[in-house]
């Protein structure tokens, strides 16, 4: 007690000095970024004067919704969107499984191949489905083919990332048992890894399907087919009551899909 009389009551801090400095630096950087953005962003104030009227006009023109348009165009577009999302997801899952096998370190024991796989995942994920759709529309022409491929390619990154993580988390016990029994690599994959990965696989696939229905509903705006195409037509013709119908259909289908995926997830897990 008498050896340390000068120290006095100890000061307790929730965070270490480095943490506090780093956080302060971060706050400062965030502030600078926000101030820079606010000062240099170009907003045309003249556009803002009539914004309330424009908004009121928007809703006034949407109402009443043109229900008669549903059987003519929107129903087919809705089916196309659902098929695009589903087919795109199936394609994505098939391709992503192959890439995931390439990325998983416990299956492919080569850092170079792992790296190549990882690059594929990051590159497909970073480019948004709509940008992919622009590409595929340029290559295959407008339509559902471009939309499906855009959905499929963009989903590889997300699906493959989570799949490869699930594969890497698989317990080595069953794998070793199968190897000791002299099983072929395919048998090890199907009987050793697959049962362990299956729940994660199904969960990832349904989750991605949910996202893909949302995405495929807008792909048509750049020529990818489906509801987006109907929306684009309505908007170019300035038929806001038809646009309102498409928006309503998108709202309903997104909520319905969310309920369905929640139900499926409840069944799997």
């Amino acid at each position, binding site marked *: 007690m008498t050896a340390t009389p000068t120290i006095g009551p100890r000061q307790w801090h929730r965070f270490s000095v480095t943490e506090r400095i780093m956080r302060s630096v971060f706050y400062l950087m965030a502030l600078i970024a926000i101030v820079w953005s606010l000062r240099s962003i170009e907003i045309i104030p003249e556009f803002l004067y009539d914004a309330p009227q424009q908004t009121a006009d928007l809703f006034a023109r949407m109402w009443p919704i043109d229900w008669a348009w549903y059987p003519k165009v929107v129903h087919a577009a809705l089916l196309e969107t659902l098929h695009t999302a589903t087919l795109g997801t199936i394609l994505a899952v098939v391709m992503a499984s192959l890439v995931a096998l390439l990325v998983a370190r416990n299956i492919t024991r080569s850092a170079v191949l792992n790296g190549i796989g990882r690059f594929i995942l990051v590159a497909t994920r970073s480019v948004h489905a709509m940008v992919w759709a622009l590409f595929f529309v340029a290559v*295959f022409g407008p339509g559902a083919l471009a939309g499906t491929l855009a959905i499929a390619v963009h989903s590889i990154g997300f699906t493959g990332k989570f799949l490869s993580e699930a594969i890497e988390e698989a317990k080595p016990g069953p794998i070793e048992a199968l190897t000791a029994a002299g099983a072929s690599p395919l048998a090890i994959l199907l009987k050793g890894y697959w049962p362990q990965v299956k729940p994660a696989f199904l969960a990832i696939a349904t989750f991605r399907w949910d996202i893909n229905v*949302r995405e495929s*509903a807008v792909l048509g705006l750049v020529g990818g087919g489906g509801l987006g195409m109907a929306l684009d037509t309505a908007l170019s013709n300035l038929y806001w009551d038809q646009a309102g119908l498409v928006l309503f259909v998108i709202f309903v289908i997104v909520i319905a899909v969310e309920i369905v995926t929640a139900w499926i997830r409840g069944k799997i897990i």
Partner: protein
Amino acid sequence: MSDVPLPARTRRDAFPPNWPACIGLTVLALYVLYASTILDITWARFMVGLDQGSRFLSRMFPPNVAPDKLALLYNGMSESLQIAIIATAVGVLLSLPLGLAAARNLAPLPLAWFSRGLIVAFRTFHPVIVAILFVKAVGFGALAGMLALVVASLGFLSKLVAEAVEEMSMKPVEAVRATGASFLSVVVMAVLPQVMARFIGFSAYQLDSNLRNSALVGLVGGGGIGATLFTAFQRFDYDFVLTIVLAIIAVVMVGEIVSGFMRRLFQ
């Protein structure tokens, strides 16, 4: 040795055929065929496309790095960054009150249900669709894109704030209330300390996602790099398209690193 002859099969097959899975796979395969015909996806079209694709790729290489194009790229990209940063900041500021209003353990129930309905509406529509509506409301340009991303951020962040608040411990809240504190004091002293760490994690993720989406809203007139990209596509400047896409990938990757760093800093 074997005086008792074993019956032909004493054990179950180790891997009996899994009929439900087989049927499921067959149905899936049939669906793929059916959907392909519905969507008019044929092998011939695919092959024609591949032929076009190779021409397309050859026109994309090498990426165009002419100074005037780079200036366009820089302008578009900085506008996208500004859109993403402001949208995240505004979204973060507004999502706290909205999230609190949607938490059923703090807000009165009618208000909570109203806020939840609002959040569902915000979350349901893709940012691109919201951007279209804002382009009509406030005209072309960065403001429409920014507002669309604010709505998207609000939908995502408020939902998570509401969930975090509903999961937190009510004991500090009761303690602070017992001292006669005002509602604002309860929020600042009892609620925020419990949800802040998670909230900052979500905000970092949202910044990331706004960066990606800010490249999108431009496609429908919301300003930023998306507008530059769309123009380049329409002018068949495919080599410049490649430059833009590479730049987007680079910015998104840097954004991922920054937001990962932010999450670790505030854990």
